[in-house]
């Protein structure tokens, strides 16, 4: 029987060195007895020197090293033996750790997660207290009782977090200290080694009791996340019992007390508000309509869209383009034609020589219609009722901008303007005189081009789209030679 006496409680490198010697010597797990410094030596027991050997040692998966580094901090006296036994098996089968169902592997995983939890709780429940000092530099100390030997793996976290502080954490088995430059470890200590109070503690207790909502008592939940064993070192814990005791009564009192007379400050504010039911001002300008459309609830689309996207362009203009509805980008930006389809339109306008800044751009429907699909919003075509409801706003825009030529982009826009369902192919390519004297052109919506997968077909459609727009340009020039042909 080989006896291995480790000097440290949780030194991974020390264990690894020993384990490697044992593997070289070919010692099976049940031929080795591991002792940590806490273990009571048996009578006449002395540590054997580590054996020598020259058997080859296989590399182990990195996952095992990570696991072992955590597990050595566990308080179970069996940890070293268990690690050696799994290491032994890994020499023959590299996939042992993949078997989540293996008894040893499950035990190691459980031990590792207990250590991680212990370390996490240390990060959470260490409470620093100010150490009285004449030097003028604030110094802090905390007493903590971990279940495992987790101070060493946790202290670097505190060093990263509290770089500009001098602090020490004292545990029963060891202590850690940071002086602003260096992390050092020393002997363990006792609760009496750190101050029992702190000047800020009463503020903290005030916060703890005020943030508690007595109407939602969930004591079991609290205890599962903040186990009672930690309470003796948490200053706020003494408040928990009285808070629970008083909860029911304070909620009852709150519910029974009727709402009081509002304060005079509030009543003065009410006096300054306009009378409810005051008549709506008529929408006589584009600016009025732009403001009012944000409150539009003529159809249900307002509910999930970000905002109404009103038209954009000169207050008076000869040319108006009407699309279907804002898309994802337009909905977020509050501007029409700023997304991918807008880019296609821009390119075509430049190509045929129409200055976008002199065109009034808008949509038949002002709110974005979509269905959520994971992290994306999928565009949905507005139905006839929605188009009809929104015609009010489009009519207002037409009445204010007074365009001579309107271009309907896509079937929805054409339907809105003509008041009936239409097909693009039947109408495109020729001006349509409207009863109010404007001229309507119909073409595809630019997003149609984006949906064509085949490059050659897309190119053909793009040329047709540009031809349509070119016809619009020459019609506009015919109306007014002054229209920019940049």
């Amino acid at each position, binding site marked *: 029987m080989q006896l291995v006496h480790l000097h440290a409680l949780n030194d991974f490198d020390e264990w690894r060195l020993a384990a490697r010697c044992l593997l070289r010597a070919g010692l099976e797990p049940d031929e080795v007895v591991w002792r940590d410094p806490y273990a009571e030596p048996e009578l006449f027991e002395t540590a054997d020197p580590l054996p020598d050997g020259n058997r080859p040692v296989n590399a182990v998966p990195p996952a095992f090293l990570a696991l072992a580094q955590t597990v050595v901090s566990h308080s179970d006296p069996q940890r070293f033996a268990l690690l050696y036994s799994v290491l032994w098996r890994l020499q023959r089968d590299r996939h042992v750790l993949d078997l989540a169902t293996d008894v040893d592997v499950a035990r190691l995983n459980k031990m590792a997660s207990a250590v991680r939890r212990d370390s996490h709780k240390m990060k959470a429940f260490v409470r620093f207290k100010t150490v009285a000092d004449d030097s003028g530099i604030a110094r802090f100390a905390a007493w903590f009782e971990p279940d495992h030997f987790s101070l060493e793996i946790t202290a670097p976290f505190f060093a990263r977090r509290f770089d*500009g502080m001098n602090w020490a954490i004292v545990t029963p088995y060891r202590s850690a200290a940071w002086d602003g430059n260096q992390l050092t470890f020393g002997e363990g200590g006792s609760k009496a080694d750190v101050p029992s109070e702190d000047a800020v503690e009463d*503020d*903290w207790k005030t916060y703890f009791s*005020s943030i*508690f*909502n007595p109407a939602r008592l969930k004591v079991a939940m609290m205890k599962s996340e903040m186990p009672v064993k930690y309470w003796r070192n948490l200053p706020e814990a003494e408040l928990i019992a009285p808070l629970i005791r008083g*909860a029911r009564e304070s909620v009852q009192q709150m519910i029974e007390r009727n709402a009081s*007379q509002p304060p005079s400050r509030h009543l003065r504010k009410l006096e300054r508000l306009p009378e409810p039911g005051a008549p709506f001002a008529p929408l006589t300008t584009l600016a009025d309509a732009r403001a009012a459309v944000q*409150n539009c609830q003529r159809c249900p689309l307002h509910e999930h869209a970000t905002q109404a996207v009103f038209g954009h362009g000169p207050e008076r203009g000869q040319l108006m383009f009407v699309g279907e509805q804002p898309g994802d980008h337009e909905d*977020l930006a509050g501007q029409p034609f700023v997304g991918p389809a807008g880019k296609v339109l821009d390119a075509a306008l430049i190509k045929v020589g129409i200055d976008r800044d002199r065109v009034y751009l808008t949509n038949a429907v002002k709110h974005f219609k979509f269905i959520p699909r994971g992290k994306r919003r999928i565009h949905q075509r507005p139905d006839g009722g929605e188009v009809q409801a929104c015609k009010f706003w489009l009519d207002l825009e037409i009445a204010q901008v007074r365009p001579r030529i309107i271009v309907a982009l896509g079937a929805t826009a054409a339907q809105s303007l003509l008041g009936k369902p239409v097909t693009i192919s039947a109408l495109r390519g020729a001006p349509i005189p409207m009863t109010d004297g404007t001229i309507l052109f119909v073409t595809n919506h630019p997003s149609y081009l984006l949906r064509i997968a085949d490059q050659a077909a897309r190119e053909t459609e793009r040329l047709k789209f540009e031809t349509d727009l070119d016809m619009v340009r020459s019609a506009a020039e015919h109306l007014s030679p002054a229209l920019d042909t940049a």
Partner: protein
Amino acid sequence: MAALTMRRKLAILSDAAKYDASCASSGTEKRSSAGTGGIGSTEGSGICHSYAPDGRCISLLKILLTNFCVYDCIYCVNRSSSNVPRARFTVEEVVRLTLDFYKRNYIEGLFLSSGIIRSPDYTMEELVRVARSLRQDHHFAGYIHLKVIPNATPELLAEAGLWADRLSTNIEMPTDLGLEALAPEKRPAEIRTAMARVRGKLDEAAPDSKAKAKPRKFAPAGQSTQMIVGADAADDGAILHRAAGLYSGYKLRRVYYSAFSPIPDASARLPLKAPPVMREHRLYQADWLIRFYGFDVPEIISGGHDGLLDLDIDPKLAWALRNRALFPVDVNRADCEMLLRVPGLGTRSVDRILVTRRHHRLRLDDVARIAGSIDKVRPFIEAADWSPGHLTDDSKLRARLVPPPQQLSLF
């Protein structure tokens, strides 16, 4: 009026902040004070430093800058018609309190909100000043969550995102009608526009592999929102539909559901009864299914009744019981998507099943060891040595899987 002590202000302004459900301090960039002489760090996953008896974690110092407010939202304890005691912190006081608490390891950082005073811009500017001072004057590297005041200028929003880890704009109510009824001065479109602006800034800050210059960082922990549940008549379908729309539209990290809880000096129009905490819990579970399990809202709602989730069983089990034709699922063959739909199997269990089954065929015991508990799983799976037979279709299955009633709260 006599000046309030600091401690009295703290009591008033933390009491006023306790109805906001969000508490997380997770999901931000990795950051530390190492070598800076400052204090603070964030390492991805947040830390809960304490728990209140209401079961909620205390991770951040959650306070209002002031609980004075010009708005009169009926559900809110700080509405202008309420007679709660009022207080206001100075920017310096909040900074000092945050640092004092942080240095004692009470908190992970600050979650600062505010009643709206003077104007949205004025209020937002004050919030931004606190965060700026913490970061610039004190080299504070801890977590900061700022509340966005809808209608504040985009410039203030942009600066808020420079200092804060997370920004949140509360949607408040599940439907616009609900908001109109209970918060007549708030405009739903303004709230959503604020979220859209934050999203735009988040998009700008997203690293672009093609661009050489690294974009300026903006709220690395993203944005979140809160919805009050049970103050109006909106059903779970409306709530989840709203949430799904918000996730897809504004890249939200989280939607927090807050069971409406009685408030002091409350209006008679409010339901003054125990908060529907079980409903809130089921909504969180449903939200989880939408974000991580590939469920969509109609599927989840179809597991309940009349637009409400089943309160007795979790929404995944409710869905499975209504869709038994899709079960049992063979744990040795089924694809990941289908395994994720098995009640009792979480994402981690499914990952471990997928790895383990590469090496040997899983038996029921193996699944039990991986899942931790097998009762809920058993009727819905097949394993090497197990077939549920008629158990899947047993009419008493639901009754068997409903957990025994337990006392949830004092009421």
